[in-house]
């Protein structure tokens, strides 16, 4: 059963391609020590801004560090943020969205107003302020993402729950004597789950970008940990001498975000037993 299901999932090219791209990054991140040809922090001031060669497959940066190794280690930070921030954001936003959509009345009023007010702040500014207040570091990046982006989940999940709430099967559950908690968890939740998965993959992509932005402006990790955002910032200084230094981390970023979005798109169609 499960294997047949996996097989069918992979028959969808979006799931297959997106999943493959994400998997490549995950494997690279997990085995960073293994796959990196060199120490990402080891400087070699004799070999600054080397073009790609047999020794340094993707060249070196302005301090002579191996770019491929830095990219691979950067994937660790990107994926860690994507996973932790994505899931925390999803859980917080979904819980509030479900509550608002199902309970209605004043809880809905309260949550919806909060979402409205929250969404009216410019997100990049808000994140920069937040991290400045919390101090730099991965944990503050994650907190900033959760605090800012829960509204995305809350809004969409509320709308979807509201839609499901008015379906006859919910009335059927009431007539069947189910309690509100059981109706929410057993009847409604499975129906909003596909949307949850799709939003989660999108959110992971967004988290990767936000982390890169914060690294770019130097508000994420200290500069001795390789991050894609940090690499982009450094690459900007030497964009005319060595354009691949900025291009490579941007390409990695783009590939990961696109992979996540593709995966989400594909899952959306595949997880819906009615669409299938």
């Amino acid at each position, binding site marked *: 059963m499960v294997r047949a299901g996996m097989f069918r999932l992979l028959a969808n090219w979006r799931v297959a391609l997106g999943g493959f791209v994400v998997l490549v990054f995950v494997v690279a991140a997990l085995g960073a020590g293994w796959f990196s040809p060199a120490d990402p922090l080891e400087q070699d001031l004799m070999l600054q801004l080397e073009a790609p060669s047999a020794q340094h497959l993707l060249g070196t940066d302005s301090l002579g560090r191996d770019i491929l190794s830095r990219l691979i280690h950067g994937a660790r930070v990107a994926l860690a943020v994507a996973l932790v921030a994505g899931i925390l954001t999803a859980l917080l936003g979904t819980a509030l969205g479900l509550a608002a959509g199902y309970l209605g009345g004043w809880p809905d009023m309260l949550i919806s107003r909060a979402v409205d007010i929250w969404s009216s702040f410019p997100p990049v500014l808000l994140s920069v302020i937040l991290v400045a207040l919390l101090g730099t570091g991965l944990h503050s990046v994650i907190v900033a993402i959760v605090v800012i982006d829960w509204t995305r989940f809350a809004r969409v999940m509320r709308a979807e729950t509201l839609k499901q709430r008015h*379906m*006859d*099967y919910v*009335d*059927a*559950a*009431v*007539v*069947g*004597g*189910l*309690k*509100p908690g*059981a109706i929410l968890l*057993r*009847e409604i939740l*499975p*129906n909003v*789950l596909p949307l949850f998965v799709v939003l989660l993959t999108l959110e992971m992509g967004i988290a990767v970008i936000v982390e890169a932005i914060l690294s770019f402006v130097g508000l994420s990790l200290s500069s001795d940990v390789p991050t894609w955002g940090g690499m982009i910032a450094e690459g900007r200084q030497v964009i005319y001498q060595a354009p691949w230094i900025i291009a490579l981390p941007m390409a990695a970023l783009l590939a990961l975000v696109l992979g996540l979005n593709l995966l989400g798109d594909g899952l959306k169609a595949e997880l819906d*037993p*009615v669409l299938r």
Partner: protein
Amino acid sequence: MLIDARGIRLSLPDRGRPGTLFRPAPPIEILRGVDFQVAAGEAVGIVGESGSGKTTLGRVLIRLLQPTAGTLTFAGQDITSCGEGVLRPLRPRMQMIFQNPLSSLNPRRRVRDIVAAPLLAAGIPDDGTRVTTALSRAGLGRAFEERYPHQLSGGQRQRVGIARAIVTEPAFILADEIVSGLDVSTQAQILTLLRDLAREMGLALAFIAHDLSVVRVLCDRVAVMLQGRIVEDGPCGEIFENPRHPYTRRLIRAIPLPEIDDGWLDNPEAMEEA
């Protein structure tokens, strides 16, 4: 009387004119003083054109909606305005079959789980035999237990809805337009099935339909609704052969019987301007 509704009124905020924070939407009265009874084991039809309030009345009877005025009792117990906590123990005895079987069956649950849900909620222990029995009474074999609703035909979905409604052996079932979307052959099957089940289990039925012919197959009595009121009710034979209210007469004359009748097209009521 198993179900006894008297002077039921219901107002809801007008959907067409949403209110504001300071001026709530003006309510419109959808039920305007309805008296409706169903005795144990009796099948009563509710007919009328769309928008007349049949579904709303049905939802009040099964207490998915709370009436604004009037009294409603079920087996002698007043349930006009009690909360879901008081209703829950009664739920196994009053069930409902829905008009749209696709939207009333959770698309993500298997047939077995859908039918078992009311048992589980009522804490009735089941090793699967009650579910299997209910499904087989509704004419579905064990093979269907594993399926999802979208893997069934329209008639089969409605059978699942029937199985779910009878699994707790209720005394009363509300059926809202349950054969509207089906073709005549499937409709005949479902009507016959429901009638046989009602006789066998001593079920009382409130059977909502816009098609009077369908009501005649199944019901002992019929109530005719018009604009939130019941304008006429009585035994089927009497109402269909000797309708008293002008609206009932008009409703009956408008039905095209499958026989040649040149007079039908000359009905002056049908020549009205709109």
